[in-house]
C-alpha cells in the first residue's frame, strides 16, 4: 500500500501533467490523425454539460464527436444538441441505439458508434469524464511515440459535494488509480478503465471490433487484456482523466463498488481474495474483536496509518477537492466509514453473481461473462 501511494504521488497530476499541458499547440505540419470521440450516454450525470463541453474545446486539429443514447427520449439529448449547435465546426453525430437485453449495453452502443465513425483512432470516454484541452493531443502523442495500440489513463475522481462523493472520489484516486498505476509500473499489467481509452481502429478491427466484448461486463479490463494478449502494445502516459462525482449517494456508491467487486472476483479470484489486505482497518478491527484489548492500540495505529496514507493521496491528487475545508474535516471519519462499507462490498461476490447496472440485471460468470437467462442454444466456451 505504501508503494502504491508512493507511485501515485510520483505520477500525480500536478507534475508531469502540468508540464505536458503547458506544451505548445500542435502545428499543422505534425501528423495528427483524425480521432473519433465515442461517447455512450445514458441520462444525466453530475456536471454533464460541462463534462461534454470540455470535449468540444480540445486543442486538437481534427476530430469528431459521436454520441449514443438508448432512445430519443433520453434526458441528456437536450444538452448534447445544444452543444452541437454551439460548436458547429466540430462534426457531431447522435445515434439512438436501443437497449439490448442480453449483452453489454455500453459495448452495444460502442459498436454502433464504431460503425459510424471515421477516425483512425477511437477515443472512448464516459459521460462523467471532463478533460483538459490538451488531453487528446497528449494521448495521441503518446500513441505515436510509443507505437502502442491502446493508451489508458488513471482516473481522478473529483468535485465532491457530498460525503458519498468524497468517498467515491477517494476510492477512485486511492484504490482504483493506485492499482492502475502500481500494476502497470511494477508488473506491466494494464488495468484499463473505461473512463478513457484511446484505441487504434485497425487493431480493434483485427479482434472483430467492439462486438468482440459484447458478452462481457468488464469490457474495459478485457479490452486491455485482449490487446496485450494479441501482441498489441498497450501503454499509458499517466495523464489523469477527471471523473466528476458531485452528488453521489451512499446507495449509488455501494451499488457501483459492489458491481465492480463482483466483476473483479470473476476476473481473477486469487487477486480478489488478496484485496482484503488493502483494507487493513477491517483486519485490525477483526483482530481486536477476536483477541480483545491488546489489539486496540494496533487497531488504532492501523486506522491512523490508513487515514494518513489516504490523506496524503488526497492532498497530492485531488487538487480541486482539497480547496474545500469540509472535505478536510470529514476526511478521517470518511475513510473509516468507507473502509467498513467496502468490507461489506467485498463480501458481496461470495453471496451473489447478479449485477444491477442502469436497469439491467445480469448474472455474470467467468471473466464477467454475461449469462442470459433464456438462451437455449448458445454455448459458453469460457467453461472449457
Amino acid at each position, binding site marked *: 500500500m505504501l508503494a502504491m501511494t508512493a507511485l501515485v504521488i510520483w505520477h500525480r497530476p500536478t507534475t508531469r501533467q502540468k508540464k505536458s499541458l503547458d506544451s505548445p499547440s500542435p502545428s499543422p505540419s505534425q501528423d495528427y490523425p483524425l480521432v473519433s470521440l465515442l461517447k455512450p450516454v445514458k441520462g444525466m450525470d453530475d456536471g454533464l454539460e460541462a463534462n461534454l463541453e470540455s470535449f468540444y474545446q480540445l486543442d486538437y486539429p481534427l476530430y469528431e464527436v459521436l454520441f449514443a443514447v438508448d432512445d430519443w427520449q433520453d434526458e441528456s439529448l437536450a444538452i448534447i444538441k445544444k452543444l452541437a449547435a454551439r460548436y458547429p465546426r466540430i462534426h457531431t453525430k447522435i445515434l439512438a441505439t436501443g437497449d439490448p437485453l442480453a449483452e453489454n449495453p455500453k459495448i452495444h452502443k460502442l459498436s454502433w458508434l464504431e460503425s459510424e465513425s471515421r477516425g483512425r483512432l477511437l477515443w472512448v470516454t464516459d459521460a462523467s469524464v471532463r478533460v483538459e484541452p490538451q488531453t487528446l493531443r497528449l494521448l495521441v502523442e503518446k500513441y505515436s511515440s510509443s507505437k502502442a495500440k491502446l493508451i489508458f489513463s488513471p482516473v481522478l475522481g473529483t468535485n465532491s459535494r457530498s460525503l458519498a462523493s468524497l468517498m467515491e472520489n477517494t476510492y477512485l484516486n486511492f484504490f482504483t488509480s493506485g492499482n492502475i498505476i502500481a500494476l502497470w509500473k511494477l508488473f506491466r499489467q494494464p488495468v484499463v478503465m473505461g473512463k478513457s481509452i484511446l484505441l487504434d481502429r485497425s*487493431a480493434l478491427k483485427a*479482434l*472483430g471490433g467492439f462486438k468482440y466484448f459484447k458478452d462481457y461486463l468488464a469490457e474495459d479490463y478485457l479490452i486491455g487484456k485482449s490487446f496485450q494478449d*494479441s*501482441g498489441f502494445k498497450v501503454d499509458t502516459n499517466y495523464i489523469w482523466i477527471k471523473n466528476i462525482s458531485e452528488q453521489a449517494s451512499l446507495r449509488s456508491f455501494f451499488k457501483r463498488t459492489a458491481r465492480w467487486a463482483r466483476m473483479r472476483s470473476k476476473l481473477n479470484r486469487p487477486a480478489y481474495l488478496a484485496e482484503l489486505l488493502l483494507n487493513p482497518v477491517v483486519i485490525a478491527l477483526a483482530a481486536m474483536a477476536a483477541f480483545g484489548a491488546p489489539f486496540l492500540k494496533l487497531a488504532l495505529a492501523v486506522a491512523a496509518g490508513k487515514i494518513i496514507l489516504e490523506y496524503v493521496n488526497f492532498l497530492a491528487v485531488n487538487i480541486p477537492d482539497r480547496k474545500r475545508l469540509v472535505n478536510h474535516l470529514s476526511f478521517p471519519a470518511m475513510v473509516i466509514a468507507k473502509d467498513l462499507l467496502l468490507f461489506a462490498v467485498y463480501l458481496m461476490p461470495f453471496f451473489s453473481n447478479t449485477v444491477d447496472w442502469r436497469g439491467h440485471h445480469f448474472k455474470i460468470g467467468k471473466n464477467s461473462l454475461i449469462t442470459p437467462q433464456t438462451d437455449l442454444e*448458445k*454455448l*459458453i*466456451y469460457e467453461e472449457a
Partner: protein
Amino acid sequence: MKKPELAHLVAVHMGLGHLRAAYPLRSISPEGIIVWGSRGHVSRGEKKYWRLWRRIYYHLSRVGSYPVIGKLALKILISAERIPPFYPQRDLSRPTVGVRLLKFFIRKANLARSLPEYLKGDNLPVINTFYATAIALDMNVKGQEPLRENYVIICDADVNRVWVPEKPAESQLRYLVPCSRAKARLINYGVKKENIFVTGFPLPTENIGSEERMEGLKIDLMTRLGQLDPSGKFFAYYGQTVHQLLGLNRIPGSASRPFTIMFAIGGAGAQVEIVGKILKSLNKEINSAQVRLIFACGVQRKVLEKILKFINQEGLLPQIGRNIYLIYQDDVFNYFDQFNRWLRQTDILWTKPSELSFYCGLGIPILMAAPIGPQEERNRRWLMDIHAGLVPPGPPECCAEWLSDLRKNGRLAEAAWAGFIKARKLGTYKIAKLLETGQFTEE
C-alpha cells in the same frame, strides 16, 4: 416453405467435431440442433457432469504440450482411447471398461437420462452425433412401444468400442458411418449389419450444390485444381478425366485470388503453436499477395488472440483483411457458417486429421498436422489410403519451400482429385433420404 421435420438432432459440445457433424443436418430437425449438456436442456446436476467431461476433454486434447507430465499423460490418454488393430479380424463385442463406465454413468449418475423425457411428445427419429446420448437413448427405448428410431453419426474413420452398447446384438441403435472401414469395425464390435448405413460424413450442402449435379462443388474444384497445378503436370495426366467427370470443358485459368491455405485450429486450441512458424515462412509470399492464409480459429478467444500475437510478431497486421483472414465467432454455428463459406475459396486445408478429414470429399487436399488420439491416427491412415491427405514433407518453418514443391509437382492437385473421387460426398442428402423414405442404397 415449411421445413421437413424428419428427426431430432442431438449433439454435444465436446470439441467442434460432434457439432460440425450435426450442422449440415440442422434443417431436418424441428428445433434445430439440441446441444445436450448446455443450459436450458439439462438439470443443474447433469450440466456439471457435462462441464467436467468437457474440461477433461479440452485438457486431454492439449495434454501433449504440457511440460514434464505431457508425454506420460499422452500415453495414458492413448491407451484409454485405444482402438484395437483391425487385423486379424475377430469378435470384439465383449464390452470394455469404457463401455461399463459409460453404462454406470448413465444408470447411476443420470448422464443424459433426461433426454427421452425432453424428446417426449412425438415419435420422430433421433440423430445423435455423440455416443453417450445415443447409448442413453438406446438403454431407454428398449421394451418401449412404439420404438423411436435412434441413430448415431460416426465422426471418425474408426472408433473405440465405447461407441457401441454393452450388448450390441440387443441394441436398436443405428449407425450412420463415413466409410467402409468404420462399418467393418462396427461389425467386429457386434453391431448387426442391417443397423449400419455407410452414408458418408454429412458435409455442408452449401459447398456441394444439388445432390444430382453437385454444381457448386464441381466449379470450386475446377478452380482449385487450376490453383494447385500451376505447372500443368496434373492436367497432363488427368485433364481428360477431370473434364469428363466434372462436365466442365474449360481448363481453369488463373483464379482471381491468391493461392489460399486454410489452417484450422482444433476446437481445443491444439496446433496453435505452429502458426508462428507458418507465418514466418510465408511472410514474403503473404506480403506479395502470392499466398492467402485463412486461420480458422474456432470459438475460443485465447486462440484468436494468440494468432493475432503471432501476426503482430511477424509485422503482418496490415495484411489482415487482405491476405490474412481470421475466422472467429463466439457462436459455434455462426462459425461453421463462416468456415464453410471460406472453404469454397480454399485450396488446401491444413488441419489435424479430425472429422475435417472427410472434407476431402469436397475436393480439398488435406495437409495433416499431428494427430491427437487413436481415432485421428486412423483418420490419417484413411486419408493416406485414399491419397487425399498429405503429411507435410518438411517442418512448418520451411512450409513456403515445400508447399511450392508440392504445387509444382502436382501432388496437391492429385490429392484434391483423389478426395473428390474416393470419399463420399453426399452424406447429408443420404441421411435425409434414409429418414424420409426409410430406404438406403449403399455406394
